[in-house]
């Protein structure tokens, strides 16, 4: 049986069209887009083509797209750039408790520089309450940052509602749309955001490249200082080969989304229903409807996620766990704890992310083997014994 890859959150395989575009670029272009000569011109053309492709995916103007080294840099740029840009106006920033580490740790750095941060609680589904955002606003508030969709539980936040509040109070609004862009329709006009982060490796482009959408007129200081690249917003010679890949991935995502979405949704439904029916006492995380269509997060009681993940891999199934043991940091996921899960339950959390290569047969294999693996681990677990002999 071929590998059943259900961890598209960590990395996506290159789309064939992305591979083709990057290969062709590698073989024909080497110039610097900033060079005003016949070697530089094809490079500049490739750069601007990719910019237009990304802009089209999110309904932006091409000049509002700034290429970055990925989602992390885009988030760092948005938060630190606005903080520096508006330092005279105020030093208060509003965010949520379940943001990606690149947002939370950027804010940690800003705290060291005497910015104040209000981090809002979420409900049991991981939803941010727009009314709570409005309540947290002070005359000092310069920036609100709430993610479009959460990368661990899939919950899609009411971004358009929060953006309206931000607009009303004339506060810059950033959304980290890394987990959502290329998967679901993302339209910066409908969302009404000033800044939006995206990354190619979430939608079949290469890792190490992303973009920050900067609405015209948004006050933001560069993160990287240097030359005049990216309309003076991001210095440094462009990662052109990556950018070409991002552009091709954006175009392919826009084209294939209408076809892929219903198929992925149906497969996720099959996985969710099958696991709930086949494994007693599991808890589904995230919002039941407002959720990324390719992400399914569930916490399996009485057992720990890393051992479950490793036994699934033995069956050729690759998934992600939010267990503290596997996190590298040995901490329970702040997202799961934020939605009210206790530590033991958070330990047993798996995240399945489906992709364009996921098949019904692959899902059925998961459904066939996972209940047995869970039972093996539960039979080994001292907590399971206690609850089930009582």
């Amino acid at each position, binding site marked *: 049986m071929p590998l059943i890859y259900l961890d598209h959150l960590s990395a996506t395989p290159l789309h064939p069209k992305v591979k083709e575009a990057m290969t062709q670029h590698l073989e024909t272009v080497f110039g610097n887009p900033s060079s005003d000569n016949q070697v530089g011109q094809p490079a500049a053309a490739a750069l601007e083509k990719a910019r237009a492709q990304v802009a089209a995916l999110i309904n932006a103007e091409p000049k509002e797209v700034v290429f970055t080294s990925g989602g992390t840099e885009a988030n760092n740029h948005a938060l630190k750039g606005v903080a520096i840009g508006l330092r005279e106006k105020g030093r208060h920033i509003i965010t949520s408790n379940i943001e990606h580490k690149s947002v939370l740790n950027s804010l940690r750095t800003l705290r060291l520089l005497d910015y104040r941060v209000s981090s809002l609680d979420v409900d049991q589904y991981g939803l941010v309450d727009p009314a709570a955002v409005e309540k947290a606003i002070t005359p000092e508030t310069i920036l609100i940052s709430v993610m479009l969709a959460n990368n661990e539980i899939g919950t899609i936040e009411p971004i358009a509602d929060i953006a309206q509040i931000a607009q009303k109070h004339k506060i810059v609004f950033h959304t980290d749309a890394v987990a959502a862009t290329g998967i679901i329709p993302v339209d910066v006009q409908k969302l009404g955001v000033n800044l939006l982060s995206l990354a190619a490796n979430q939608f079949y482009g290469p890792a190490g490249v992303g973009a920050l959408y900067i609405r015209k007129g948004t006050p933001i200081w560069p993160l990287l200082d240097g030359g005049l690249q990216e309309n003076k917003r991001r210095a440094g010679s462009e990662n052109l080969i990556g950018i070409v890949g991002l552009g091709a991935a954006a175009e392919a995502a826009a084209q294939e989304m209408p076809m892929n979405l219903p198929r992925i949704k149906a497969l996720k439904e099959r996985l969710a229903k099958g696991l709930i029916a086949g494994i007693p006492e599991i808890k589904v995380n995230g919002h039941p409807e407002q959720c990324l269509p390719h992400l399914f997060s569930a916490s399996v009681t009485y057992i*720990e996620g890393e*051992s479950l993940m490793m036994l699934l891999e033995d069956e050729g199934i690759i998934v992600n766990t939010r267990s503290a*043991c596997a996190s590298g940091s040995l901490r329970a996921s702040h997202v799961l704890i934020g939605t009210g899960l206790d530590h033991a339950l958070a*330990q047993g959390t798996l995240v399945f992310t489906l992709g364009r290569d996921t098949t019904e047969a692959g899902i059925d294999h998961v459904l066939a083997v996972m209940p047995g693996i869970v039972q093996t681990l539960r039979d080994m677990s*001292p907590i399971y*014994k206690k609850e089930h002999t009582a």
Partner: protein
Amino acid sequence: MAYSPIVMDHFKNPRNVGEILDADGLGEVGNPVCGDMMSVYIKVVDNRLEDVKFKTFGCGAAIAVSSMITSMAKGKTLEEALKISNADVAEALGGLPPNKLHCSNLGADALHSAIKNYQDRKSGKVKPLSLEIDKEPHVKGTGGGKCYCPYCETKVDDEAHFCMSCGQELPHEHDH
């Protein structure tokens, strides 16, 4: 750092899983907040560990450590078993990733705690074994006091709040 082949073998085919219903000693350490929880059951005949079994909630390393330490302890005298250290278990497993060394601490702690439980019961300090009543409070790892930064795997001070090598905040809700 990935797990060694010995760790993978003991994780996938764990030895001595289960309970001993008429156990002479029970050691329970860890809690699910830390990530790992281990129960070790011992049967003692003529001062020797005739049987050792375990139940573990935890990661691959925790399960492999449980399997290895119970295998190592079986047949040993109590004195010999008490000498099995965290380092011995980690070494027998072909090494553990530095940020998983705390799992081996838990293994030795659970075994030693089971032996102590047996000795206490024999000397009348605690009542005869009732599986649900005998509980050791969570014992902190005693393995030489070595802590590793989970981010960069540099050795860090026990009480440090930041790793001096990579600057990351160090978790302290987790046992070392």
